[in-house]
């Protein structure tokens, strides 16, 4: 057996377990070849197929290093709150704390604890909620504006900005910036109502600030403006409803908000650096796969390079 049957689990490639089953398996079984390779030395450092795929060992190393970079102190310490402050002697009393607050103050949960709690909680099936408590996005409503226009009527008039190009600009739009749209401020849509309140349609909606067109000066017209090669095209502004919908969207969860690794960046090779001096890592150590820049750094590296399990 390789590694006494121990396999590293920090693995982006899910290797199927070698388990057994009474099925005729005539194809090449990847898990079997992984466990019974022709050469025993390179099992964990098999060459990977794609550009960014790493071996289990490299992956584990990266994860370990990232975790180390995330630490607050180099070693684990606990700094207790000084005891003389714990009794409220000589301090402003904030009244008796409630059991809930005592629980919060005594909690020693870390962020990771809270996050896994949240993940476990959100993976539960959602119980049917009473619909009264959450009025569905009161923001998306047609505001009776000064002109009395419905939102549908304002929409086409907004798109005049959409096709903004120099040839279309006449001077009167320049002198009076057209109010583009009415968008309610934070208050109206972010106000959830108490459970027993009357329907939300009755909220008076004061006039909200507008997305103005700006007051910068527009360049003077030029005969070349009509040239199809020179015309600049500005995309259409979204309609008021669309903006309201964007603003009313609920917050994403912590994990959803994590920025992605976009496709363009995945296509680029990952830069490798010399582990000793920080220059480009052009040479790979035969033993551990670490990168160094040249022979000199390789020698330094090999003094300390040992390929112990898990290193």
């Amino acid at each position, binding site marked *: 057996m390789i590694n006494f049957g121990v396999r590293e689990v920090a693995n982006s490639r899910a290797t199927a377990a070698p388990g057994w089953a009474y099925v005729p398996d005539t194809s090449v079984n990847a898990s079997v070849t992984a466990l019974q390779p022709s050469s025993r030395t390179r099992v964990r450092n098999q060459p990977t197929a794609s550009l960014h795929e790493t071996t289990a060992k490299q992956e584990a190393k990266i994860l370990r290093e990232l975790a180390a970079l995330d630490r607050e102190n180099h070693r684990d310490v606990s700094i207790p709150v000084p005891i003389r402050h714990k009794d409220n002697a000589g301090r402003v009393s904030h009244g008796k704390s409630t059991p809930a607050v005592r629980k919060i103050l005594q909690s020693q949960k870390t962020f990771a604890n809270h996050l896994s709690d949240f993940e476990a909680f959100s993976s539960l099936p959602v119980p049917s909620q009473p619909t009264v408590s959450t009025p569905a996005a009161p923001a998306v409503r047609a505001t009776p504006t000064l002109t009395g226009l419905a939102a549908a009527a304002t929409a086409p008039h907004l798109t005049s900005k959409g096709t903004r190009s120099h040839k279309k600009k006449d001077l009167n739009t320049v002198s009076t910036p057209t109010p583009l749209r009415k968008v309610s401020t934070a208050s109206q849509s972010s106000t959830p109502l108490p459970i027993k309140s009357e329907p939300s349609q009755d909220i008076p909606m004061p006039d909200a600030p507008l997305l103005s067109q700006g007051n910068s000066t527009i360049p003077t017209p030029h005969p070349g403006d009509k040239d199809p090669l020179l015309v600049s095209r500005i995309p259409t502004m*979204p309609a008021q409803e669309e903006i309201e919908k964007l603003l009313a969207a609920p917050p994403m969860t912590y994990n959803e908000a994590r*920025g992605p690794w976009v496709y363009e960046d995945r296509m680029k090779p990952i830069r490798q*650096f010399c582990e000793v001096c920080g220059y480009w890592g052009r040479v790979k150590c035969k033993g551990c796969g670490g990168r160094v820049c040249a022979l000199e750094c390789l020698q330094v590296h090999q003094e300390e390079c040992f390929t112990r399990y898990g290193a």
Partner: protein
Amino acid sequence: MAPRRTKSSGPPPPANTLVLDNGAYTIKAGLVGADTETPAPNIIPNCLARDRDKKVYIGSQLSSCKDFSEILFRRPVEKGYLVNWEAEKEIWEHEFFDPKASLHCDPAETGLILTEAPNALPALQTNCDQVAFEEFGFARYLRVAAPTLNAYTDIQSIFKSPPRDPASTPTLPAEILMLIDSGYSHTSIAPLLLGRPIQSAIRRLDVGGKLLTNYLTRLLSLRQYDMRNDTYLVNEIKEATCYVSKDFKADMERTWKGPKGDRRPVYETADGIAKDYVLPDYHGRAKGYVRDHDPKAATKLKEMVKGKAMGASEDVLTLRNERFTVPELLFSPTDIGLRQSGIAQQVMDSLSSLPMGLWPGFLANIVVVGGNSKIEGFVFRLQAEIRSLAPAECIVRVARPADPVVNTWQGGANLAKDEEALGRLSVTRQEYEEYGAGWVARKFGGR
């Protein structure tokens, strides 16, 4: 109808508001009155620290510390979110509710504006609301995502062009703003429309000041001295020496020593990139400082290597490619294997979830705040990268306010002066007692 509109029934709004930008590294705090002049905020380290002699410092007491070697920190804010209330309460008590504190206030007669990082966990938000009302008993309370407050500062004055009519007064909040907040824990990208975040387009890049400091610590520990117990000092080195490279490849070539037997002459000074950081010894020299690299200077490390006394009095760290490879992580996180795209791509990814019509507005109004934006060359590089990714027709403007660390606080202070807006957004203690924590969470969550 929500009760805050019937103002006559409730008590008058509190005269003072405690604006608290509760960052992971520092608290930015100040008391703002409706008609008094806004004071500069106090910047308070948000930590309990313990030095080598086991003395514990709380918050601003840290400034009395003389010896920062091997100092250890406990921070109530973890990954940008307020997690440990035991420690945070201790710090707040010391800074705001202690009779001797410079920002002393009585919470029962004070409003609170407290910032949080976007996309917080609901459990932590509820904890926060409960402590603010039940433990401290603030008269009025607003919990708000930190990027949002930046819309309440005059962002157009930060941009140099086009020139603005000086007489025009800015309308707050700013209509359209792409805010990049690069702080201690992470970097968040938040498009704001009329002072409200577009939640579906907020992105977080898990690279912050802490990661940069730890990365520099690792590099220095591998190459020169073991600095792993002196992250406070490494942070100072980082702030003093790091810069964002304009041409990464060229800088890399300049700082390479060359292969054996073919030493590059440029290596010693590296065209001015090589800098010496003279380490403090906490006796004669309490603070380290930077100077240009001097190959002939006698240092203690050389004495040790050569084994002879040269009368060196200084411990020196020489920084070469460490100076620019560390902040480079903000633009290329894959350098350490972190599978995320850099800031510029995150901005574009955030935009890609928005209608095309809003792109020109956001691209022309990008503001960076937070401590990392102070790194030399950050704004230039960010603008160049976004410029190369954005559609050619769009104007790209990236700017940094005069003091990017307190800009969020400044926005909060401006909001605190706007009684009408603040009253609309925040929750009074009576409302909390009447409707409960769930209602408050929904109100602040915009749901």
